[in-house]
C-alpha cells in the first residue's frame, strides 16, 4: 500500500504514567480531582477499589488507582484535562456489566463512573426523542415512559442495571432487537467529552444532520472515543398487543430449523429466544416454572403489533413449529402470564449461579441458518473438555451465548474455558459469522481482531480511533490489537494466564 507523505499509520501510543500510590504526583492528582468532585465522590483506598477491579468479565482483574463519580459534563471535562496533565490513563464505567472486560483499567489510572449522572433531561413525544444522561439505567427510561405509549426499544437482558452510556459504547442488543434493531438504530445524537477534555455534540434530535455520521461511528466504540455525557435517543411506539409463547421441542435442531422457517415465511417476531436443556434444568431447579426437564430446547417466541394482526401470525408460527416436531406450546393469555414467561428468560443468568461458582458467557454470531451446526459444535466442545456448557440466546439474530461453567479457583479450568471459547468462536468465523454480536471486543477478544480484519482494515479503524483519541489515553488497549513495545507489555501484564492475582 502507498504511504504518501502526510499519511500517519500505526501510531504508537505514548507512554502513560503508572501512578505510584502515596507518591507526590499521586497525592497531587487526588487533591486536584477532589477539588472538582468533592471528597465524597472519589475513592482511592485499595479496599474500596476492589469493587472496580473487574466488570462482568471476571477472568481478568486489575484495579484502577482512583475512582471518581462526576455529576456533570463540566466535571468530566475537568477530570479528563487533569488526567492529560498528569499523563495518566482514564476510562468510563457505567454499571460495569460489560462481559468483555471493557471496564478493565489496563495500566491503572482514573476510572470515571457515570452512575450519578442519571437524569432524564427531556422527553418529547411529538418529535419522538428523549435526552438522557449517560448513567441512566436502561430500564428506568422505559419505566419513566410508561403510559405515554412510547418506550426505548433496545433492551439488553441486563437492562435492569446497565446504563444508556454503556449501551451506546457497546452498541447493545437484546431480545427485542430482532425486530427493532440494536442501539445504533436508536441513537440520534450525543454529547461527549473527547479524550483531550473538549466537549462535542454529534448528530441531534432531527431525523438527520449534514455532514458525516459521526454519532453513528461513535456508537460501539467501547469507550475508546471519549466519554458520552448525554444521549439523544429515539422513542418507539409501544405495540398495541403481544402474543407470547413458549414452544417446547424434542431436539435443538428442530427448534433452530423452526426459527429459520418462521423468518423465511416473512414473519419477523419481536423476539425469538432459545434455551437449551441445560438451561431449562437450571431455571427449573431455581424457579419451578414447570418446564419438561427432558425437552431438548424451548423457544420463547413473541410477536407484537396491532391486535388485529396477531392471531393469524401466532397461528402461522404454531403451524411452522408443528412441522418441526413441536412437543407442546404454552401461550400467555394475560399480561401476568407474559411476564412470567419473560421472567424465565431474564432470570436464566441468575439460575446459572446455582450450577457453578463461575461462568463465562460467550457471544458468537452465525448466519441464522447455520445455528444447528454451531450448536452441534458447542455440544461436541463441551464433551471434548468435559465441561458443562449451557445455551440461552437471541436465536432470531443467530447470536449464540454458550455459557461455559467453571470454577475460577482452578487454574486448569480457566485455561480450558479459554481454549473452549476460542474453538467455539473460531467455528463461528468459519461458518461466516463473527466473534461478538453484542458484548464487544474489549480485552477479551482482542486477539481475534487480526483474524477477522486484515492489517489495512485495522489501520483504517485505528485512524478513525486516533481522530477521537490520538494519545490512547482513554480506555487504552481495547478493541484494536496494540502494537509497539509499551502497549504490548500493558496487555501482557493483565493476562497472566488470563487471571490477575486478587
Amino acid at each position, binding site marked *: 500500500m502507498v504511504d504518501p507523505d502526510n499519511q500517519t499509520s500505526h501510531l504508537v501510543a505514548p507512554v502513560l504514567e503508572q501512578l505510584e500510590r502515596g507518591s507526590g504526583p499521586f497525592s497531587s492528582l487526588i487533591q486536584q480531582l477532589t477539588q472538582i468532585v468533592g471528597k465524597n465522590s472519589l475513592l482511592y483506598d485499595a479496599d474500596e477499589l476492589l469493587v472496580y477491579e473487574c466488570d462482568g468479565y471476571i477472568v481478568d482483574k486489575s484495579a484502577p488507582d482512583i475512582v471518581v463519580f462526576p455529576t456533570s459534563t463540566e466535571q468530566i471535562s475537568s477530570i479528563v484535562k487533569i488526567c492529560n496533565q498528569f499523563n495518566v490513563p482514564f476510562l468510563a464505567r457505567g454499571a460495569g456489566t460489560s462481559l468483555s472486560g471493557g471496564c478493565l483499567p489496563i495500566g491503572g489510572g482514573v476510572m470515571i463512573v457515570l452512575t450519578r449522572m442519571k437524569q432524564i433531561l427531556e422527553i418529547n413525544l411529538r418529535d419522538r426523542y428523549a435526552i438522557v444522561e449517560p448513567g441512566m439505567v436502561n430500564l428506568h427510561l422505559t419505566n419513566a415512559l410508561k403510559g405515554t405509549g412510547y418506550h426505548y426499544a433496545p433492551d439488553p437482558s441486563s437492562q435492569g442495571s446497565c446504563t444508556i452510556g454503556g449501551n451506546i459504547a457497546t452498541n447493545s442488543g437484546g431480545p427485542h432487537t430482532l425486530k427493532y434493531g440494536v442501539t445504533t438504530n436508536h441513537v440520534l445524537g450525543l454529547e461527549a467529552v473527547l479524550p483531550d477534555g473538549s466537549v462535542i455534540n454529534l448528530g441531534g434530535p432531527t431525523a438527520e444532520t449534514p455532514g458525516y455520521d459521526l454519532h453513528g461511528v461513535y456508537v460501539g466504540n467501547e469507550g475508546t472515543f471519549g466519554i458520552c455525557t448525554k444521549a439523544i435517543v429515539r422513542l418507539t411506539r409501544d405495540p398495541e398487543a403481544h402474543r407470547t409463547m413458549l414452544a417446547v421441542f424434542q431436539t435443538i435442531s428442530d427448534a433452530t430449523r423452526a426459527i429459520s422457517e418462521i423468518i423465511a415465511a416473512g414473519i419477523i417476531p419481536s423476539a425469538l429466544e432459545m434455551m437449551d436443556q441445560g438451561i431449562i434444568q437450571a431455571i427449573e431447579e431455581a424457579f419451578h416454572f414447570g418446564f419438561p426437564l427432558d425437552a431438548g430446547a424451548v423457544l420463547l417466541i413473541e410477536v407484537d403489533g396491532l391486535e388485529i394482526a396477531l392471531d393469524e401470525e401466532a397461528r402461522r408460527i404454531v403451524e411452522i413449529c408443528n412441522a418441526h416436531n413441536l412437543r407442546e406450546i404454552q401461550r400467555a393469555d394475560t399480561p401476568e402470564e407474559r411476564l412470567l414467561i419473560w421472567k424465565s428468560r431474564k432470570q436464566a443468568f441468575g439460575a446459572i449461579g446455582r450450577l457453578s461458582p463461575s461462568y463465562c458467557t460467550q457471544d458468537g454470531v452465525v448466519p441464522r*441458518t447455520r445455528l444447528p451446526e454451531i450448536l452441534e459444535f458447542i455440544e461436541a466442545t463441551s464433551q471434548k473438555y468435559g465441561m458443562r456448557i449451557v445455551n440461552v440466546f437471541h436465536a432470531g*439474530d*443467530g447470536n449464540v451465548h454458550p455459557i461455559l461453567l467453571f470454577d475460577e479457583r482452578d487454574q486448569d479450568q480457566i485455561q480450558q474455558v479459554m481454549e473452549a471459547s476460542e474453538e467455539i468462536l473460531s467455528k463461528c468465523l468459519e461458518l461466516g459469522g463473527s466473534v461478538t454480536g453484542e458484548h464487544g471486543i474489549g480485552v477479551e477478544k482482542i486477539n481475534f481482531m487480526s483474524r477477522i480484519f486484515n492489517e489495512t482494515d485495522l489501520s483504517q479503524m485505528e485512524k478513525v480511533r486516533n481522530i477521537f483519541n490520538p494519545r490512547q489515553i482513554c480506555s487504552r488497549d481495547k478493541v484494536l490489537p496494540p502494537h509497539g513495545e509499551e502497549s504490548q507489555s500493558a496487555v501482557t501484564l493483565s493476562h497472566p494466564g488470563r487471571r490477575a492475582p486478587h
Partner: protein
Amino acid sequence: MTLTHSGTPEDFVPTSQSELSRFLSDNATSARKQTFPVGGRTSLAVCCPDSHSGPLICTSQLNRVVDYPVRDMTITVEAGMRLDQLNEIISAEGQRLPIDVPQSNRATIGGVIATNTSGPRRFSYGTIRDYVIGISAVDGVGNLFKSGGRVVKNVAGYDLGKMLVGSLGTLSVISQVSLNLRPRPECMQLVWFDFDSCQSVDQALEAIVTSGTRPTAVEYCNSKAARQITAESRIELPNENHAVCICYEGPENVVKWQAQQIINEWRAFSSLDAQIIEGSQASQLYNALTEYQTSSDDPVTLKAVVLPSQMMSFIETATSLNIAVQAHAADGIVFGHLPDSASSLENVNQILEQLQSVIDPGTGYLTIYQCESDWAESLPLFCSPPAGWELMQQLKQALDPLQLLNSRRFTELVKS
C-alpha cells in the same frame, strides 16, 4: 485500465476491487489527479460545481451478486449494482430492501449509500444506514478496507459503514456492501386526505403520535406539489388545499382495517372525504411521491430537516413564498421546489433568508438539494455548519490525505 463509452478516455471502469485499489494507489503515488466516483450519474451536477476536472471512476462493471444466502435474508453485492436489478433479484425471493430510491433504474447501491438516499418509508423502516451490515471501500490513496461482516448482528470493531453512509464519495469509493433484507409485505394501501389549513394538518400530524394505526409513511404536499404529484401518477385526487397521504403495508386485512381506522380518527381534523387508493394505483401514487424530490425541472430544490413539531410553521412560510412543498411529515423532512420566479441568485438568496429565519438554528437545517451547477458556486449549499465539523475535517484528512476524492463536494459540504 478500461475506457468508457460515454466518458473521457481518462475515465476508469474497474472490474474488480483490486483493480480499483491499484488505480487509486497508482494515482496517489504518481499523477495525483482529482478523481470522481460515480454510480448511476443520476445526480452528479447536484450540489457540486465543476465536478469533472479529472477522471471519473465508474462503478458500472462492479455490479455482481457476491453472495445471497436467501434464508439468512442478507445479500452481498458490488457497489455498482443498480437498484432495479437488486430489487428484481430479492423480490423473486419475497424479500426487499425497504429504501425508496428515485430513478431506481439508474441509481446504484453505492450511490444510494454515498448520498444517504431515502424516501417516504423512512418513517417506519429507517434509512440505508440501518441496513448496511458490512462494507468494503477503497480510500483516496488506494487502501482497500472493510468493516462489519455478513451477519445481521456484529459488534467486532468500529462501524466504518456509518462513516461512509452520506459521505458523498469524499472518503472512499465504496466497492462492495452486505445488506440486511426484510420480507415483502402482502399488500399496500394509501389514504389521501385533504385539509383546509396548515393548522389542521398540524393537529392531525400530532394525533399520529397516539394513532391506533401504524403508518408506513406519512407524506404531506401543499397544493402546488399535490397537483404535480397527482398529475404524474394520473390519479384524480383533491389537490387544491393541503394533502396528507398515509401509507399502510402488511397483511391485507390489517392494512384495510388501518385505512378505515385513520379515516375515523382524522374526521376531527378534516371534514373533507378521504380517499383510499389501492392496487396498481397505490404503486403509481407511491412512485410519484418517491420521485418527486428529484423530479423537478425547477431551478432550485431545497431540503429542510426540522423537528416534526416545527415543520408546519416552516411549510406555511414556504407556501407563502410560492414554493412547491413535499414533506416526509412525521420525520420533519421537507423538500421545496422553488418557483420560476426565483430566476436570479438574488431572488434565491432572499427566499433562503426568509426560510432560514423560521428555522430553529439549534435543531434545524436548510440545504440546497439541487440547483443549476453554475449557481452552486455562489449559493450557500449547506446553510449552517454541521456539529463536529473539525472531526469531520480530520476524518477526510485521514482517509483522503491528498484530497483526491470528490474534494470539491466536501468543501461544498461546509461552505457557510
